[in-house]
């Protein structure tokens, strides 16, 4: 498809388990973003990549969260030792370029809903 693709769309796991969430951005988009949206809240920034490198990971809540984008396209968000508070919708977005500011609309995927029991 032409849009941002996220898998799985739903993931139910048990507390303490490891989870991977995948994002396939729009072809050719160099910038990729992860956001987290908790129930009743707006999305919160987690991390963004420019190419293969994490340009800013200041939004990752703690060291249980990690993301990679080894070839500058697909990205995986990894969560270790999941906790119930990690339950949320994890959104991925991509942009043609990260800068300059007056170009490069963000295109969001439908999200991966994570439920930690």
């Amino acid at each position, binding site marked *: 498809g032409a*849009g*941002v693709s996220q898998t799985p769309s739903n993931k139910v796991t048990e507390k303490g388990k490891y989870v991977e969430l995948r994002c396939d951005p729009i072809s050719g988009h160099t*910038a990729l*973003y992860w*956001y987290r949206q908790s129930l*009743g*809240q*707006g*999305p*919160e*920034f987690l991390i*963004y990549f420019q190419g293969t490198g994490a*340009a*800013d990971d200041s*939004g990752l809540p703690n060291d249980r969260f990690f993301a990679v984008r080894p070839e500058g396209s697909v990205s995986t968000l990894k969560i270790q030792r999941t906790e119930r508070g990690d339950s949320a919708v994890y*959104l991925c*977005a991509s*942009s043609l370029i*990260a*800068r*300059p*500011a*007056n170009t*490069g*609309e*963000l*295109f*969001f*995927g*439908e*999200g991966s809903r994570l439920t930690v029991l």
Partner: protein
Amino acid sequence: AQSVTQPDIHITVSEGASLELRCNYSYGATPYLFWYVQSPGQGLQLLLKYFSGDTLVQGIKGFEAEFKRSQSSFNLRKPSVHWSDAAEYFCAVDTSDGARQLTFGSGTQLTVLP
């Protein structure tokens, strides 16, 4: 720290009525401002954006927004609401000098009555 406030958690309007959704931001520099809409089962969709220039910006689906620096506001408007506009609306500010790290408000849920 930067923040975005959407004071209305839920708004109900009748189809055909006008709509205004409020958004206030806190940010020291000139902000880049956005409105997104989120419908069930769909990703966030950009309605409009403000970077500079004319403070009244037009977006998709007949929406417009006005940037008022003196009030730190960026309210979204539509003159006549359609039933298909029922969704959640998010205001966001880019505080990363254009790197698209957005700070979102908590959203306003819009219900449209027939």
